[in-house]
């Protein structure tokens, strides 16, 4: 694997216990205001696999990704990445670790004052001293992979949502990271791009030995791409296993989620006072 990062990667042969689990989360607690988002979450992500995180909207999938990358700090519990407790890192070490990640944000998060080309080139320009020619070569290759080489000179504001996400994907993989995190990569893509992106995720993973974490609601796509999936609910892992295992699991919650039923253990509604009561205005303070 090519690595343009200034930092040295770890020596894969001396990693001992952690060689199989790339990310381990132990007894994680995190809350927003008074609402506990995670309450005793345990989860491991295996090296070289595609791991899917699923769960109803608002369960905290994005929050979990931010915790794993220490954009947020948990109230309790430990998160290990490659055997390192990330809460112990100082800023420099954290940035070194982050260079090994690539992250696709839910809304793309392209830098609005830079063109598509410069957006993808951004990490290269910040972290390497490559020549312009080489940067151009790398960037165009990555843009080509997501089918947007022709959009290189456009500004992010001129892109559609799906295009922006694909550019963001190109940017996430431009440094050839070891771990790629995708927050809802399949939303807003037409069937053709969807197929291409799904295959791209798979190919990056298999050909380059990347570990991938994919957040998605899309049960069908996840089934085709993931090696292992976790279903999050109520601040915990409600179920885990291969997509097939989940599909055939006889837990009610899993069935509800995998088959998209409105009734079941997962409430479709965010916690609220009784519908009738609220409409009739009885509980207004």
């Amino acid at each position, binding site marked *: 694997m090519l690595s343009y990062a200034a930092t040295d990667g770890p020596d894969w042969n001396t990693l001992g216990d952690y060689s199989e689990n790339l990310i381990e989360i132990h007894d994680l607690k995190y809350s927003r205001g008074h609402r506990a988002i995670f309450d005793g979450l345990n989860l491991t992500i295996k090296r070289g696999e595609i791991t899917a995180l699923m769960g109803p909207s608002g369960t905290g999938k994005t929050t979990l990704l931010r915790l794993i990358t220490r954009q947020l700090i948990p109230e309790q519990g430990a998160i290990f990445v490659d055997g390192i407790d990330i809460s112990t890192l100082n800023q420099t070490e954290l940035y070194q670790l982050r260079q090994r990640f690539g*992250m696709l*944000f839910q809304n793309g998060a392209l830098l*609005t004052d830079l063109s598509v080309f410069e957006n993808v080139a*951004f*990490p290269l320009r910040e972290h390497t001293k490559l020549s312009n020619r080489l940067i151009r070569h790398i960037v165009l290759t990555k843009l080509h992979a997501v089918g947007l080489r022709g959009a290189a000179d456009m500004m992010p504001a001129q892109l559609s949502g799906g295009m922006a996400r694909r550019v963001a994907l190109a940017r996430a993989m431009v440094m050839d990271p070891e771990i790629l995190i995708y927050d809802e990569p399949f939303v807003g893509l037409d069937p053709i791009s969807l197929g291409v992106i799904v295959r791209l995720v798979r190919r990056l993973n298999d050909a380059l030995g990347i570990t991938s974490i994919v957040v998605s609601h899309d049960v069908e796509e996840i089934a085709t791409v993931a090696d292992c999936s976790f279903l999050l609910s109520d601040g915990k892992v409600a179920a885990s296993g291969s997509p097939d295992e989940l599909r055939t699991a006889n837990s009610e919650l899993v069935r509800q989620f995998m088959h998209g039923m409105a009734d079941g253990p997962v409430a479709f509604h965010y916690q609220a006072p009784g519908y009738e009561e609220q409409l009739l205005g009885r509980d207004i303070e």
Partner: protein
Amino acid sequence: MTRVLRDIRNNLLEFVRTFGAFQLFFLRLLRHSPAILSTRFGLVIKQVYNTGAQSLVIIMVCGLFVGAVLALQAYSNMAIFNAEDWTGVAAHLALVKELGPVMTAILFAARAGTALTSEIGLMKATDQLSAMEMMAVNPVRRELVPRFLGGVIAMPFLAAIFSATGMFGAHIVGVELFQVDVGSFWQQIQLIGESADVNEGIIKSVVFGFAASVIAVWEGYNAMPTAEGVGRATTRTVVITAISILVFDFMITAALI
């Protein structure tokens, strides 16, 4: 009653906390500044251009009219004592020592400061700052410090331009309109004006440059990451900058007298 007291106490605590955080933020910007100035000067130049070019037209137009009004006022008052020749000096002193730096800073806040705040607030709201964090790029260093330095550098120049166009406006009114002798109009300035006056103006515009820039950047960085939050932050930028500028103006003037 206890509730009122508790509210007051909480607000006071909140204020102290925010103010402390603000100072730390300011120090953080300063700490990164030398490195950015020496290694990423291009980013700073771009921001000087952004903020400076944005404010230039408004600064020149306002400067012209402020100078013209000063000359009008000065002439009509000086005429009582037959001291019309002093019109130029009056306008010069008012512009260089007070109105130049103060008006420039307030116009800067309204034009460039709001733009800085909303740019940064929007970058935050659309996860651009988080994305930088994830690319192991420090957003404070990469985005905030250059904007801050751009404002700091642009302000003294803008103030100088304001005063210069102001003197031009004063010249038009005094010399062209009221027929004050052009020689005495300008020579009085040479005779009466001291370099200390100019220095006072420079000191003020430098201090205001720091204040206006750090406030704009801070408000953007701490805006609530929503459209409404960013809107509110830009308003706060103008209000807080205007107040701080006037307070600083008083303190500096008092200290230099």
